């Protein structure tokens, strides 16, 4: 939980695998790296067993690149495909029982605040739609109602991908899946609406076919969760396997779904706007100068 934890014990560097040496010498720790610089620095995410061409993988990759202070970040996850990659990264990962992630993150984030005081330590939950909206539903909602200060990211592939195609609360109505052969009978859950009702300070939807936008929402969500309150990002991260999307058509599907039912949306409270403007220099959230107000 500091820059030191990625350094070698003196004398041991030369025995470490190349990937580890690259991480220490050319990783993003302690630097301001951005999505536009990918391909020139060693990323925190390593090789992992998620399927080829999976959009969830791409989203996780972009999200980890976008963490504002990776050296001070802990991820929390649970059963589901995403943990297969999130756990293969050079930042600490806590694995909760299926559905426990927001409870675990609540304790973790409170503990870190007690231990480190004002020095920000960011807790980011990344879990599937089933983990967040079905089995973890109560813990997710309660963490929001309690105003726990950490970021929750739903990796929404609209199915239980890891267990072979059961419907989740986030599956769309009438969708036929391997283990929902008659089609889903109910509407997709409105988790965005619930996040707002429960008091999240920032709520956004995003699709990974726009990497810069993924970067922007992740940064805002993590920064706001430091001091203002819970933040929620719902990302469409298609499952090639359960939705039979050819891997070279994944971005085409993302575009279609974005236009159809996953348009970019962002909700941010006035308090969070002021905080981002004043503390982190977000110009769009700073009050307009008097002259500009008079003109408009």
């Amino acid at each position, binding site marked *: 939980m500091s820059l030191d934890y990625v350094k070698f014990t003196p004398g041991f560097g030369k025995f470490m695998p190349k990937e580890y040496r690259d991480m220490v010498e050319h990783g993003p720790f302690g630097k301001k790296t951005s999505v536009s610089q990918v391909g020139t620095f*060693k*990323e925190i*995410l390593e090789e992992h067993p998620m399927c080829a061409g999976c959009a969830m993988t791409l989203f996780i*990759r972009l999200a980890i690149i976008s963490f504002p202070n990776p050296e001070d970040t802990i991820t929390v996850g649970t059963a589901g495909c995403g943990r297969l990659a999130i756990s293969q990264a050079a930042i600490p990962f806590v694995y909760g029982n299926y559905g426990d992630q927001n409870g675990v993150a609540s304790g973790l984030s409170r503990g870190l605040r007690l231990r480190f005081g004002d020095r920000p330590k960011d807790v980011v939950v990344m879990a599937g739609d089933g983990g967040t909206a079905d089995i973890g539903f109560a813990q997710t909602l309660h963490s929001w109602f309690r105003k726990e200060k950490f970021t929750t990211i739903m990796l929404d592939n609209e199915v239980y991908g890891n267990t072979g195609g059961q419907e989740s609360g986030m599956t769309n109505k009438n969708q036929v899946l391997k283990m929902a052969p008659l089609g889903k009978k109910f509407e997709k859950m409105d988790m965005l609406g619930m996040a707002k009702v429960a008091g999240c300070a920032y709520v956004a939807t995003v699709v990974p076919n726009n990497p810069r936008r993924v970067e922007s929402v992740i940064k805002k969500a993590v920064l706001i969760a430091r001091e203002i309150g819970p933040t929620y990002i719902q990302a469409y991260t298609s499952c090639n396997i359960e939705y039979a999307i050819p*891997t070279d058509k994944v971005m085409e599907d993302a575009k279609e779904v974005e236009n159809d039912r996953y348009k970019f949306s962002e909700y941010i409270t006035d308090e969070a706007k002021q905080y981002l403007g004043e503390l982190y220099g977000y110009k769009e959230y700073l009050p307009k100068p008097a002259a500009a107000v008079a003109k408009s």
Partner: protein
Amino acid sequence: MYLVANIDQSICAATSCKLCTQYCPEANTIQYDNEAGKDKGFKYGAAYVAVDRCKGCAQCVWVCDNMAKHHAIKMEMIDQIGDAALTENITYHDKNTKAVLASPLKG
């Protein structure tokens, strides 16, 4: 044998839009070499694939064909591409990387 992405650096270097690497789902798989193509008069360097990390999904091909519209990437059998970049042969520099190409199938 299996397919991996292969970038034609002479096409890529003419533009070097750096789009594909933002869309590859795998980390540190499409990398950038700022020097590539400079001997041919191109200014901005080019992308290359660390073939040992490529899962062969061809998303980068779609991105280069349809978003960048440069048609610089093709899927090729790994034993047909000759020398390629491998993670162990990549050196990181400040804001740049360089790979010594080697046969992916020989030790």
